[in-house]
């Protein structure tokens, strides 16, 4: 029996802890300074909007951890000493480990501009950020959100739900087109505007002004937008500052091999902060998404408790919701035309629904996108893995339809638009 210490109680760290417990009787200690108990970070927005209370975002009841002998330590790690197999907490406590799992997550990407220290300016990542946002927005009438990513949309939706007038300043000419192909990006752009958000596309913020509190921002075209709250959501970066001087090899994130092992043999890194030295085909070195964190947690537990196995995340998938518009993606869907890839795209004339099937020149399916409708993960994954053709997919859309019962079917319309 050895002592496994996990830093970070997000989805990656907690999945690792649960699976280590399933597969072994190792001593497990999970350290986090953010919260004692695991909660779903993705649900923070719903607390702000009043859909849920914090307790609802906790997937396990408090007795779960005692019952499964997973020790939870609320504390902040200040130093990691790989040579002594130990780490130091802010409280001065020293914790020794046999194996260490770094699941430190991300932190908001800082904005290199003056004025971010003003009151009312913040990012959104942690539970503490949410509490700050609650305090920061009590009297707010107008808000600006910088950045056109998923957290930016969430923040806009949160503020909008409280009757705040929101302006989003987005560098790209169309919303999230660094990920979405043009048509999808257009649809999401239209949707966000239809929900009452003032969307400034192709703009950047030049200046943040205010005395103690933010009062306005100045855009690159000289226009001035008054605001009492400024959200900065220009992405996240791995949260690895604690590793400084530790000797553990880092790049943008903590470098890990295909077994998720760092430069030190007893130390693993998983989740947002892990940077794969050799990412598998179709995957990126850094993947700060829920699902990758969960799969890495499963894999690292397996590597520690059982026979070492290469981390294989399989075919890429992701999902999001922009206000009321759901998005799912599977496999490879490039945001711009790419040599050797073509795609079939259908968009409903009557409602906000779209589907994209990406295929190679042999008409073999490599990726799928959907907006406003639901696709079956199981079927999409199987089709892409088995190399089903476009024609096969179009003829079997009923299998991939995951919309609730009694919904208006899209299969016929999609098929008809192909033959037209």
């Amino acid at each position, binding site marked *: 029996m050895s002592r496994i210490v996990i830093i970070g109680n997000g989805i990656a760290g907690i999945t690792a802890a649960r699976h280590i417990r399933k597969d072994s009787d190792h001593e497990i200690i999970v350290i986090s300074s953010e919260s004692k108990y695991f909660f779903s970070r993705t649900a923070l927005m719903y607390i702000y909007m009043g859909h849920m209370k914090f307790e609802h*975002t906790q997937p396990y009841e408090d007795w779960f951890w005692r019952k499964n002998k997973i020790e939870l330590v609320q504390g902040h790690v200040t130093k990691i000493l790989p040579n002594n197999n130990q780490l130091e907490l802010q409280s001065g406590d020293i914790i020794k480990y046999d194996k260490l799992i770094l699941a430190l997550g991300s932190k908001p990407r800082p904005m290199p501009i003056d004025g971010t220290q003003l009151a009312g300016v913040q990012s959104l990542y942690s539970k503490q950020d949410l509490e700050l946002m609650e305090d920061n927005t009590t009297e707010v009438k107008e808000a600006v959100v910088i950045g056109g990513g998923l957290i930016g949309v969430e923040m806009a939706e949160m503020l909008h*739900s409280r009757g705040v007038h929101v302006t989003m300043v987005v560098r790209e000419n169309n919303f999230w087109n660094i990920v979405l192909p043009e048509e999808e990006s257009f649809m999401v752009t239209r949707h966000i505007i239809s929900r009452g958000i003032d969307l400034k596309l192709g703009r950047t913020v030049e200046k943040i002004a205010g005395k103690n509190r933010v009062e306005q921002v100045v855009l690159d075209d000289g226009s001035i937008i008054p605001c009492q709250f400024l959200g900065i959501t220009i992405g996240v970066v791995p949260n690895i500052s604690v590793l400084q001087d530790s000797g553990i090899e880092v790049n943008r994130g903590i470098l890990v091999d295909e077994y998720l092992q760092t430069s030190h043999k007893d130390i693993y890194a998983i989740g947002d902060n892990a940077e794969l030295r050799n990412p598998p085909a179709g995957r990126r070195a850094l993947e700060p998404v829920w699902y990758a964190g969960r799969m890495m947690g499963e894999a690292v537990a397996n590597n520690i408790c059982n026979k070492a196995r290469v981390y294989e995340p399989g075919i890429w998938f992701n999902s999001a919701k922009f206000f009321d518009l759901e998005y799912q993606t599977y496999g490879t869907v490039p945001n711009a035309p790419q040599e050797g890839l073509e795609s079939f795209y259908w968009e409903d004339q009557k409602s906000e629904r779209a589907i994209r099937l990406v295929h190679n020149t042999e008409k073999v399916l490599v990726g799928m996108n959907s907006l406003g409708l639901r696709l079956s993960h199981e079927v999409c*994954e199987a089709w892409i893995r088995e190399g089903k053709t476009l024609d096969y997919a179009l003829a079997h859309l009923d299998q991939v339809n995951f919309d609730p019962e009694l919904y208006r079917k899209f299969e016929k319309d999609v098929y008809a638009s192909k033959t037209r």
Partner: protein
Amino acid sequence: MMHRINTALIIAGYFVFLAVPFLSYHLVTPNTVYDVIDNPEQASLLESKLRNIMGSEISSFTLQTKLTEGLDAANQSILAKYSLTDDQLSQLSALMTANHLNQQAVDSLFIGEENEFMRNAFSNYGNWLYDKAYASRDAATKVLAEVKNNIDSYEIEPKLGFDRYKKKSIKFSLSKASLKGPTVSSPLLIMFLSFGLVILGALGISALLLKEPVGIKNNDVFRHPATSRKWLGVIIGTFLIIFYIVLYFYPEYMSSWIALVDPLSMLLNGSGAGQFFLYGFLYTISVLVMGVRMIIKYRHNRYQIIRTISVMFFQTTFAFILPEILVRLNQPYYDFKNIWPLDYDFFFDFELNKLIASGQIGIFMMVWGIALALVGVPLFTYFFGKRWYCSWVCGCGGLAETLGDPFRQLSDKSLSAWKFEQGSIYTVLAFAVVMTIGVLYTYFTGASTVLGINTYSMREVYGALIGAGFAGVVGTGFYPFMGNRVWCRFGCPLAAYMGIIQRFKSKFRITTNGGQCISCGNCSTYCEMGIDVRSYAQKGENIIRASCVGCGVCAAVCPRGVLKLENSADDNRFTPNGFIK
């Protein structure tokens, strides 16, 4: 602004409703007494005891107090007239000490027409004293007192005077017959000013949702004072609890409200309304108005729209209008979609007799009810899950899914709540089954006790404790405290019965979409049955739970398209999808 106006309408209507009992009064005349009591002798007796209130305008509280006194006084007079006299008692005890008490002696003691009643009564209740030896007058007097008591309460009061059932019914009918005030003189106007304003306000507020874009509308649910166990929720819950207690146990105090729906009752079934007509009316209106709200709220979701129209339809026609029309056509009152054991009195002797006495249609109703319970329920539940009933047809479910929708997030999701639920709901099911077996045993054999338990008291306890207390008072009154499915989750025996089928042999399940779950918890939060949906979704497992009523809201609120209600092959429904280890 519009929101304020509509809120004001609701509050105004609510206060008019509350004011009605205080604006009403009662005026008892000899005629009202003769109208509500068929037996002229009894009527005249009670009338003589109510002289002190005749012709004066009194409140319902005064009426009930005086009426209670009057009925007791009338009973005293009856007893004084018919009960065993001291003289008779002493003669009897003399006979007993001499060991001479027998049928002959009794017959000769109670001679003549005026003593016929006591002659028969004593033969029935005192025959166990015959031919027994009693050492002293004291010993004899003691057992005689017991016999006298039995004759008083089981013969004289029920047959000649006013037993508790008769009292209850007279209190209610006299209260209604003597009622005066605005609801009698202009019921339609008051109806408009109370229910009408509330309905308008509620529809108005629902219509405001149309101005918002389509999509999930749960903003501020956990901040609103009505839907987060705060002050308004406490007020609503308290009102509902009091309303149900009065409805089931003290209907004589609500005659001024019942008078409001008299015109509608006349129209539908040809006679005045009782408390359950008022209840049916309010229930149906609630389902319809809040059903409209549900449809507007989920207008992007066809499953919710069609399902809501279904519960609105079944409540309005099957539960409310059709039974009244049957009564008008001199047929038995019958709700074709109410199913044993939820319909716990289906097999009660008076119900069965009523159906048998109604000829072919009655027999059809009886066969329909039995077939539905024993064949229809398992079959439909196998194909569609219990949702075919619980969230598409049932009246309790209909109210929960419409009036109760704003409270669904208040259900307890903890493991301990689940354990409590299992203990509680299957206990009620067992109680319902045992009670029904007992009642049928009595029906077929005539013996009123099984294993020492009186089946009449058993069914009475079930009716008061489960039928009224659990299903009504707790079931609806606790909406703002424990969510909108308290009865369905913890008490309904039919839900328990269907749940067993759904869990072990059904094509229904909620499928999890691969690995797309982000554990956000919307599904669990908005599950009215308190199922921790997320705990399955985040493991890639299908949700197969006895309690799931298939309302579909978990799938609706899921932001990542993870959940789908399905009927599909039942061989591999417990196999996880394999995307999450």
